[in-house]
């Protein structure tokens, strides 16, 4: 490539994808932004009135659902980390020749539609299904016990569905860790736990960071799990937005809530980025 054109290389690389995102993400978002500032109804038409008051109004009314959603998402992220990190670690460090196979095993279940997986959980956790039903028959559970339509089921479903989003990035980061660094640490009289805590864990943080984001963010916006496995009391903000959009046709409020959700997520992510030792998103 001629030297004078070298400066163009990065732009060439990012142009196709960048344009795609501009055209099919940024532009529609601008459209939606305007919608949130509109007032009106279906028959009288919506008018762009710059009704910024919709934001505090929507936020005030739906604050409990917001908080609940963030709470669930945090629980889900913590759970996926707790469950997924050891898995990723085992595959990366103990996998040996079978690394790919193990990774395959982890990802494979998630090649089925998540709807089907969630519906299967509904079946598994059914009040009188083969799990709970048997436990009840054996007297280990009381009759009225149920998991479906409780927060436990919703969080459980979310955790299950987002587990690979944690395992994969953590694995990718762990796999890059040079084993010789760990060996060096143990050579220097660190115990295995210490070696892990002071060498492996910090080196895997980019993966943990990526995994946490990839888990937290979709969890916050999800409504399928709450709809299939939950009840009225587990309503998440995604359910609210969907209902406002598709059933109440209240586009301005729905759009406003969507943007508030986005903003909340961005704020939390920024805080997390600072807290994780100045780990900026731009760094791998």
């Amino acid at each position: 490539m001629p030297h004078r054109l070298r400066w163009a290389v990065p732009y060439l690389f990012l142009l196709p994808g960048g344009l795609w995102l501009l055209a099919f993400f940024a532009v529609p978002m601008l459209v939606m932004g305007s919608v949130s500032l509109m007032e009106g109804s279906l028959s009288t038409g919506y008018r762009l009135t710059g009704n910024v008051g919709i934001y505090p109004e929507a936020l005030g009314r739906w604050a409990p659902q917001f908080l609940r959603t963030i709470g669930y998402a945090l629980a889900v992220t913590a759970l996926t980390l707790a469950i997924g990190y050891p898995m990723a670690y085992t595959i990366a460090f103990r996998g040996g020749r079978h690394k790919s196979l193990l990774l395959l095993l982890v990802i494979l279940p998630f090649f089925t539609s998540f709807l089907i997986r969630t519906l299967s959980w509904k079946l598994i956790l059914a009040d009188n299904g083969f799990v709970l039903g048997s436990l009840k028959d054996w007297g280990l559970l009381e009759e009225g016990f149920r998991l479906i339509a409780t927060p436990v089921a919703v969080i459980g479903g979310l955790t299950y569905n987002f587990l690979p989003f944690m395992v994969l990035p953590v694995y990718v980061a762990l796999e890059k860790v040079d084993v010789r660094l760990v060996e060096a640490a143990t050579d220097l009289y660190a115990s295995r736990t210490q070696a892990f805590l002071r060498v492996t864990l910090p080196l895997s943080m980019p993966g943990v960071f990526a995994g946490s984001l990839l888990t937290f963010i979709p969890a916050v916006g999800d409504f399928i799990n709450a709809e299939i496995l939950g009840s009225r009391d587990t309503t998440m903000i995604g359910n609210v937005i969907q209902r406002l959009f598709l059933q109440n046709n209240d586009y301005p409020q729905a759009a406003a809530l969507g943007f508030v959700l986005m903003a909340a997520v961005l704020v939390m992510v920024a805080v997390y980025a600072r807290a994780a030792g100045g780990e900026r998103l731009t760094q791998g």
Partner: protein
Amino acid sequence: MTAPAIPVGRELAAPVPERRRPIGRRAAALLLPGYTALAVAYLFLPIVVMIAFSFNDPGGRQNITWQGFTLENYVDVWRRPDITGPMLNSVVVALVSTLLATALGTLIAMALVRYEFRARGTLNLLIFLPMATPEIILGASLLSMWVSLGVQRDITTIAIAHVMFNISYVVVTVRARLSGFDRRLEEAAMDLGASEWVTFRKVTLPLIFPGILAAALLAFALSIDDYVITSFVAGRTVTFPLWVFGVSRIGVPPEVNVLGTLIFLLAFVFIAVQIWIGRRELRARPADA
């Protein structure tokens, strides 16, 4: 008489031989693999249930209690255009969007990791925002745009939407891999006379390929799964998740499980082949990273 073997000096410092590791250590060594085995079992539980109930022969609309074994569902599913149609749509969209998104996303990741340029901040924002946005907003905003442009919604608009949300995930995944990449390997290759393109093809690409593959797999899974965004931009096209959601409201028929099982098997074969090819290459090239 031989003196009792009292360990002294160097012998004390020698590591304990593997065979005589105390029970505690042995158990601890099994802990991680044991845990992983359990975790894998947990991951597969709904899949097993799904597969099991694909052989169920329910009397009515419900498929939640075992009522009898049948292979009928597997035959039946191919004869029903209302099922095979959506399934085909989903697979086509997933393949196309995976290819495109992986290509576009990898390029962006490379640009981000290896070059300095001015639009970096904006680009990062542009990549990150789609992931932070609730799918419902992504979907509704796209629909508004299509309608305002008078564009008919069909499989093309679905594919476009899928590429859009997949790019971000590909970038994040590949970038995590790329940033640990040792540039000196490339420099070494070029020092040895390889052109940039050859270096890329023979050094860079194979080394980052696992990262790209992981990203592609993720993109494929996300695409074939997608319900929310697709429901907004699908128009008259029905994809598999759309069909499942619609039909699940009145009772999940065993055909749903059959298709889930088949997609699962397809993915299994696909990945197994990938691994097999990877293994063959590894054997052909003995010394490798």
